[in-house]
């Protein structure tokens, strides 16, 4: 028995070390690279790169796209998981597959499909022009692409929780005469709020960093349609390595803030 405990303790620490080594090389080292490169020419260069007019502009657009992505995906996530978990209907697997598909679609294809749908070659392009709507190579296109790549993040968090919770409570509430929104607010929401927050955090993190799809649809108009990741790419292509990494570190910091929020949310969620 003693022997057994010793072995399992050894296994424990071996496994932990494996994880730490893996995470160190795969995650922390790249992160350190970004930060050391960013500070290679000193703090002042860093500040200048981060406070650059175009960098701030890009940060603004990134935040705008992220907010829209979170809003649209939250609305969608709640309605979709409600429909999927509270009602039986045919084609449920097909529906969930369709919702998930954006995760596995190549970002290049994601950009391409919006280009085909709303671009100059599209049959609806003249109609959009008449309405004065510029979608591709403008802010709406960037928002659409961002929403697309983060599409399933919130519903994916909500569905398992709502599924596990079952439908009895809602049914009881409905039989007592409560309306749909009251049921949701009073009965369902308390169960899902932590999962929802977690989903929002993930969605926001992913939306901020999206590069491929946005790159195809943005047009790289300086100061107009550049998001932070695109601004990084531009700086990089201007041989401005240090500023490029400086702006990247800005994204890293934003991501870390979001991940810290996530940790707190999760911790409180588990306590509750």
């Amino acid at each position, binding site marked *: 028995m003693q022997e057994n405990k010793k072995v399992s303790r050894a296994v424990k620490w071996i496994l932990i070390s494996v994880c730490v080594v893996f995470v160190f090389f795969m995650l922390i080292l790249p992160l350190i690279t970004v930060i050391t490169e960013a500070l290679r020419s000193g703090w002042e260069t860093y500040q200048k790169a981060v406070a650059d007019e175009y960098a701030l502009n890009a940060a603004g657009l990134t935040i705008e796209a992220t907010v829209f992505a979170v809003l649209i995906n939250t609305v969608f996530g709640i309605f979709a998981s409600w429909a999927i978990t509270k009602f039986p209907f045919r084609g449920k*697997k097909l529906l969930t597959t369709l919702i998930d598909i954006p995760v*596995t679609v190549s970002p290049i294809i994601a950009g391409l499909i919006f280009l085909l749908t709303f671009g100059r070659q599209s049959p609806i392009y003249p109609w959009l022009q008449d309405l004065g709507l510029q979608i591709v190579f403008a802010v709406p296109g960037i928002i659409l692409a961002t929403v697309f790549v983060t599409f399933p993040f919130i519903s994916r968090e909500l569905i398992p929780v709502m599924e596990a919770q079952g439908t009895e409570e809602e049914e009881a509430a409905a039989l007592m005469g409560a309306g749909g929104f009251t049921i949701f607010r009073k009965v369902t929401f308390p169960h899902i709020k932590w999962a929802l927050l977690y989903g929002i955090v993930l969605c926001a993190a992913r939306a901020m960093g999206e590069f491929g799809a946005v790159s195809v649809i943005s047009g790289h108009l300086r100061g107009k349609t550049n998001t932070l990741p695109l601004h990084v790419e531009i700086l990089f292509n201007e041989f401005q390595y240090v500023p490029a990494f400086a702006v990247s570190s800005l994204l890293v910091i934003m991501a870390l803030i979001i991940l810290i929020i996530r940790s707190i949310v999760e911790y409180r969620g588990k306590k509750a």
Partner: protein
Amino acid sequence: MNKAKKRVIPGFGLSMGVTLAILSLIVIIPLASLVLFTAQMNFSEIIEIITRKRVLASFYVSFITAFIASLINAVMGVILAWVLVRYDFPFKRVLDGMIELPFALPTAVAGIALTALTADTGAIGSFFEQFGIKIAYTRIGITVALIFIGIPFVVRSVQPVLEKLDHSYEEAAGVLGASKVKIFWKIIFPEIRPAVFTGFGLAFGRCIGEYGSVVFIAGNMPYETEITPLIIMSELQEYDYTSATAIALVMLLFSFAVLFAVNIIQARSTKILKGGNK
């Protein structure tokens, strides 16, 4: 029975309507336009495009690197999830928090940083160089980038299942004298298997289409390190829309198939979650 249930909880029409509306605008209509575009070609043309040697080679490169990367992620993901759920150690929360980093870091930044690290002038690359192993600009480099991209998927699929897993069977087996290894393979693994597959499938689907990080670290040599998304990009730059969309459609059908399989497996995984909850 079903009918009665439907009537009890209100809001089916509304929620389904909103779901389908947003789904159509964001996913279905754009995807359909891709299909429509490809439909302008006849079948033999499409076959001709997607069976070009270079395209086939890129399918192979994308597939094999994504597969190996997802496999490594599946193994590491299970270990990570296990460590995070079952053990307590200093800085565990930090480790836990790091897992989503690949989601948040722009893929291009990840690619540039990883290339700088693994080129033969970089910190990791120079070490392996001594043994004659090149990482950046080879398929190994692509695999490294894809491992980075895919880390969160398996960990986050397995973690909740492990958390909800009932300890009593393990304990019983332990009391009966089963070895730890045996307990893991016979009792725990069958429970988390669907979650592992789900995570593997998602990571695989994501990796096979990854572009931003890979173009920096791959040498982009035709037949050697050229991935399919890069082929699509180069077809686009030659204004060859038809080829680009045809290849894109193949990738799309592939990811759809992977996902459909994942969702069928997930249905099982959810049942376990539900069971564990009660």
